[in-house]
């Protein structure tokens, strides 16, 4: 155990502990899939040889898919870690603020009324409306929870839960209107999934994801302070209202970007941050980047299982995250004190 406070070097060392396995998983995961391909064929195609189906699958299906899983899992975990701190609630996760509800209404409307909107630039119609729904929910919650001295955390939490319930009602209504085969499409969206082919969707993530994650990572020192309560943090010189606002906006944008593309994927944002804190302590200069690596690794593994377990059909990845993540987390709980 370390004696002093963390140094930049110790920080880097700890991050490598998470980063190296993450990189390895990113490298290995594309080799597995519902169709068996020979890696030598891929290399052959890359180095100027004959273009093959294997290279096509590897480069344009599996690699973007694995990258997406890594980004989505990593982002959900970072947002979860940050929200747990500012909401003072260990059960907080990216979806606590009701963003998923807004996204689901958007996506369901797009599926129900295909003529409503076509895609634009790199965005698909369902994704655009889901994004719009998420942002709308964020604005509503912010308006409700805003106070002259910052944000009311309790209002934020309660408004988020209330909006989630309201959205559930609205979605039931949309489902009532939908025909059976559209219902199936909606259900698939609500289960969450990463069934993406190509780089287009990846591009679509970045405009909101990058600023969102950047904002959160830049707040990591202040998040440490907020774990000791707003008043002590304020006394120590932290501008608490500004940090709460930044984390809300950054986390909200990043979640909106992810949810609009992949639908709700549970568990990652809830358990990964706790696992990281159990493993390497609660300094958020480590917790945030480590959550990204661990969340990304976890979702890539779950997605690989989802793609291969029942090949050629594919399981929604949310099933795997819950079935694998739950027991793993309980084991961690039993092994260490919390």
């Amino acid at each position: 155990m370390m004696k002093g406070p963390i140094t930049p070097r110790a920080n880097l060392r700890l991050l490598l502990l998470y980063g190296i396995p993450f990189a390895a998983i990113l490298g290995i995961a594309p080799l597995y899939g519902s169709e068996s391909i020979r890696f030598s064929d891929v290399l052959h195609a890359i180095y100027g040889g004959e273009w093959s189906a294997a290279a096509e699958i590897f480069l344009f299906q599996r690699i973007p898919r694995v990258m997406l899983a890594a980004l989505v899992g990593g982002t959900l975990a970072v947002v979860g870690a940050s929200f747990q701190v500012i909401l003072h609630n260990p059960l907080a996760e990216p979806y606590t603020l009701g963003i998923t509800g807004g996204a689901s209404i958007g996506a369901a409307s797009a599926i129900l009324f295909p003529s409503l909107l076509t895609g634009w630039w790199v965005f698909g119609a369902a994704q655009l409306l889901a994004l719009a729904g998420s942002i709308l929910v964020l604005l509503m919650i912010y308006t409700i929870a805003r106070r002259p001295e910052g944000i009311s955390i309790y209002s934020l939490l309660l408004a988020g839960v209330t909006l989630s319930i309201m959205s559930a009602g609205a979605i039931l209504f949309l489902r009532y209107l939908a025909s059976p085969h559209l219902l199936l499409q909606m259900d698939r969206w609500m289960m969450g999934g990463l069934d993406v082919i190509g780089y287009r969707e990846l591009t679509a993530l970045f405009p909101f994801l990058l600023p969102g994650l950047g904002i959160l990572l830049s707040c990591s020192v202040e998040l440490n302070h907020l774990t000791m309560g707003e008043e002590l943090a304020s006394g120590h010189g932290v501008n608490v209202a500004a940090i709460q606002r930044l984390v809300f906006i950054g986390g909200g944008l990043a979640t909106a970007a992810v949810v609009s593309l992949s639908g709700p994927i549970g568990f990652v944002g809830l358990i990964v941050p706790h696992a990281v804190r159990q493993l390497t302590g609660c300094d958020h200069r480590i917790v945030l980047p480590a959550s990204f690596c661990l969340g990304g690794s976890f979702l890539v593994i779950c997605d690989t299982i989802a793609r291969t377990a029942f090949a050629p059909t594919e399981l929604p990845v949310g099933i795997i995250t819950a079935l694998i993540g739950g027991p793993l987390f309980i084991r961690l709980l039993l092994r260490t004190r919390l």
Partner: protein
Amino acid sequence: MTLMIHPPDPLHIAALRYAYPDSDWNLKVDDLSLRQGELTAVIGPNGSGKSTLLKLAAGILKPSSGKIYLSGRKIEKMDRRSIARILGYLPQSTPYEFDHRVVDVVCMGRYPHLTLGGFMQDHDMEIIEDSLRQTDALSLRNRRLSQLSGGERQRVLLASVLAQEPSILLLDEPANALDFHHQIRLFGILRRLVRSGFSAAVILHDLNFASLYCERIILMNQGRIVSEGKTEDVLKESIVQSVYGSEILMAKHPQSQRPVVFPRLENPS
């Protein structure tokens, strides 16, 4: 034009008004100063406005009107970091969710002096050691918060406030939930700090500790200052009874002439 001869008081409050939203309760303080090298007790019944006054003085709550000066500068014009370099504030309670190491909590106090990344330099580590030493907490530095007793936790949090290198301390019930021994120990530490030049205001419920350890007392009731001044001038039977009721009996401490209080018994036997 007046010529400034004395340096400004460390903390000065003028014509301060504060009202909580949706409530009739309000706080009104016309003129109040903390002096250097003095320990001031803020006493009064529950709901009398002690914590509100301290939060206003620490710049954590914004007053409805009035001015607060830190070393002659208006607090409203200062950012949080500049305030934290002058004034240390210890809240009444802090959450227990995250199990930090003691040394990391004390490092948090260096925030107003740090640059990007928040990593400690050698100079910061000296101050952190010193802060832990001043609160008799050096031996706790590698423990986790969950492994501390209430008294140890208070000393660690106080060390994190001292690590800010402030000259003013505002402590909201630091002796809360401490046993007799640890209360005495805490006040020993506070006396030492004040002797070394701090100005400190401490919210207290125990009038005897206020009397025995503090030079000055601010007695509050219903959002107003009832009496303020030297300990022996404030802790008079008539004044104390006007706030706390007639069930209070006053006497002298056996070793000194300081006033002490007892509950008045209905049927002494």
